[in-house]
């Protein structure tokens, strides 16, 4: 009987060079989007009812954006470093390492995309009246 072939069932490296790291930036962004939309809606309702001031709401929204952008940036840099390290440490042909490299690269790229998306969404907070029509 032939010897069974060898497989690498999962990535060789851990976070962020794995499936979780790859999915983290979009998931963080999605949470951010839901949060900023809800905070703005609830915030305006609260302002109308007199519980909250405009300044506080703007601060909240700005903080959300900055935190999200920072978190995504961290994942981006971290996975970028992981990507370089994996490339340096492994020869071609190590399947588990290639899987990790691919996922790290994906995490890095998607961090870039969602960083930009976060900024584009958050920047207008600086000059727009949070509740005006």
């Amino acid at each position, binding site marked *: 009987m032939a010897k069974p*072939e060898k497989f690498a069932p999962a990535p060789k490296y851990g976070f962020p060079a794995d499936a979780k790291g790859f999915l983290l930036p979009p998931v963080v962004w999605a949470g951010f989007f839901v949060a900023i939309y809800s905070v703005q809606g609830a915030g305006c309702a609260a302002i109308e009812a007199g519980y909250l001031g405009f300044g506080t709401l703007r601060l909240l929204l700005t903080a959300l954006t900055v935190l999200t952008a920072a978190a995504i940036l961290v994942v981006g840099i971290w996975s970028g470093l992981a990507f370089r390290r994996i490339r340096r440490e492994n020869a071609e042909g190590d399947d588990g390492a290639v*899987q990790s*490299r691919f996922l790290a690269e994906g995490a890095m790229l998607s961090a870039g995309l969602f960083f930009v998306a976060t900024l*584009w*969404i958050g920047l207008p907070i600086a000059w*727009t009246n949070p509740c005006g029509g």
Partner: protein
Amino acid sequence: MNDAAEKFRSPLAAEVVGPEAEAQFERVWEKPSGWRRISAVNNSVIGRRFILTTFMFFLAGGVLALLIRTQLIVPENDLLSTEVYNQFFTMHGTTMMFLFAVPMMEAFGVYLIPSMIGTRDLCFPRLSAFGYWCFLFGGLLLYSSFLIGSAPDGGWFMYVPLTTKEFSPGINQDFWLLGVTFVEIASITGALELIVTILRMRAPGMSLHRMAIFAWYMLAVSFMIIFGFPPLILASILLEAERAFGIPFYDVTRGGDPLLWQHLFWIFGHPEVYIIFLPAAGLVSAMLPTLSRGPLVGYSLLVLAVVGTAFLSFGLWVHHMYATGIPRLALSFFAGASLAVSIPSGIQVFAWIATLWEGRPLLRTPLLFVIGFIIIFVIGGLTGVMVAMVPFDWQVHDTYFVVAHFHYVLIGGMVFPLFAALFFYLPRATGRMLSETMGKISFWMLFIGFNVSFFPMHLTGLLGMPRRVYTYPAGLGWDWLNLTSTLGAYMFAAGAVVFVVNVFWHVRWGEPAGDNPWEAGGLEWANPSPIPPYNIRSIPRVTSYNPLWDQPGLHDRIESAREYLPTATEGKREVLATSVVGAAPEYVLRLPSPSFVPLLAALATAATFIGFLISKYWIAAAGAATFLLILLFWLWEEPHEKHEKYVGNGLTLPIGSGSTGAHDWLGCLIFIFVDGAVFASLVYAYFYLWTSAAVWPPPGFAPETGTSAIIVLALTVLSLIVVGLTHWAASHHNRRGILLGLFLSLPVLGGLAYALFAAWGELPFNLKSHAYGALVVFIGGYFALHVLLSLCSALFSLARFFIGGAVPHKDVSALVFTQLSLYSAVVGLVAFAVIYLSPTAFG
């Protein structure tokens, strides 16, 4: 070669495994013949049927479009009355979006994905068949409205309040709400199995970084369907409940809000556009390397673009509602996301151009369609950026500019790639090539006809012509533009006819395609055409993105059954289940044989929908009950006759799996995602109406946290403990623990159902008096429904262990139960918080 060998599809394989084994293999995978064909479940049969049916709907929608354009050919035309015109454009839009574009792309997924990832079928074949029948019946239900002259007429997005009972008392909108929901079942089942198949059934070694690119696209799209369709399904259920029973959700006089429909619709509607476009783009990415004789440039970037689009597209819905008085800052969030989503589209366009640039393209018909697609799509994208800018949108909102824009995106982005893909992949199904000459003629007619028809609409729109008007006065400068548009539409239609003629022609007279006529590198070409029902003779180990190009001799090894699972000695259809990221073989997955169960289940479902449509609710109830019974029968399976088997190449694997992560467990998880998205939409509706209400809850409506509420909460927590116990036992394959947990859960869940019923009786309001009360009852009722579902699941699992002879390490029914009832408990806790805590939270 002797006569006996001649009749095998794969004579090479017969030499390797022996003629008996080969004959048995073919028998196991044979598709049923004669009238029994309707029991077929293979993806290749279902996929072909699906493609053909959706194409018929495309033609039907096209005929409606031609009638629309004929009505608009000259000013003051009276070919169609306003009523008929409204029905026609509504049915045109609805057909194109729900009966053609989405299902056609999913049909391609169903048809191609298994062979692209090197397996033999989808993981839930009977579910594919069920989805197909639901699609067919739902489409027919929708079209049957023409027979009684009451087709839906509220536009393809059915804006409320136009579509409420008050403004359209007829049955027209009910056809839409029920028909479309019925059809969506098919989209969701298709998505569910594509996800599980792509994650768990790729050929050994096809790890994520070398997965067929189309599978990435379909994976992302399927997730978008899983999360994107539920909001629309919920919105339709709420609207139907309001129309049929007077339960208020959108009625302003009773605390509802018509804008809720728009929000829910567009949370679905924008992703929908990408649900249509992405798979088409995926087909382009899949064909382009072959057509340009070179590698696909920027694989990682394409994957990023796909995943990025999937997420970003959910952040766009409000850009269809710029004109509805939403705060400017909220609008800017959506404008930001709209800008961001153009990045991934741009990435894809550049990757395609680079692929063409790097290769040595062959200017055959599919490539023409691909190039036509890129050109049209880029124009559509540019006008899209224009419409995404808030001030510009206010100018052209609801004019023909928008009609022009979305046809550029939809026809350019989906119909052209579709024609390319049909041209490219039909030989796989029929074994013959289409005619290049006719192909090129059809391309130029479609391309020129399209632009002649739709480019002028930008101008008609800028000149102020509104959409959805059945006629227009002369002398506004719109006349010759409309005339041109109509003539272009005729040319486009003629091009489509040439294409259809070509299809008929090639079946008889086309040149034989042989193996791999395009000399492609992907596994979908690793079999003779027309492809056999099992898609691939043996399941190969994959070490490259283009296995047929880079792994010498692979084609022959697959064909001669030298790779995995070369025989079907136990008489069962078998494939390999592999790990999610690295695609290492894990277990042998047994697939069902042909069956009538899906058809019966779809008929029962149809009875439910028809019962609602004609307001005979006993028919609906009987249909639903029958469906449940059929489902139990469906899910019941016999234990395997042995625990493991030799699969070839030195490898022995277990048969089936009873652990978390097994394909059926994963399928159930995805189902819970769908269900959770419906529930989230319901909770969203609650909070949305709250923010737009003056007082919430209305005076006298707030329910008291009485005894039964406390009992519900206590029992929910108790059910969590029991579920935890069962789950622990099931993950440790501990039979006694499982049985104990299941037994304990029966009284807990039963008591919970009873307590919920009691709590319902204590509510201080009438269901029909206010949207607040309606939502509270629906949220609570949703929980009750899931408690009952969990109860059924517990009983089912007990039956599996007692009379089904199930063994813990081969049976996931207990894990499915714990998954379901854990989710149900979460629903319960959220429902409790929403109903009893939130009215007091903000005073």
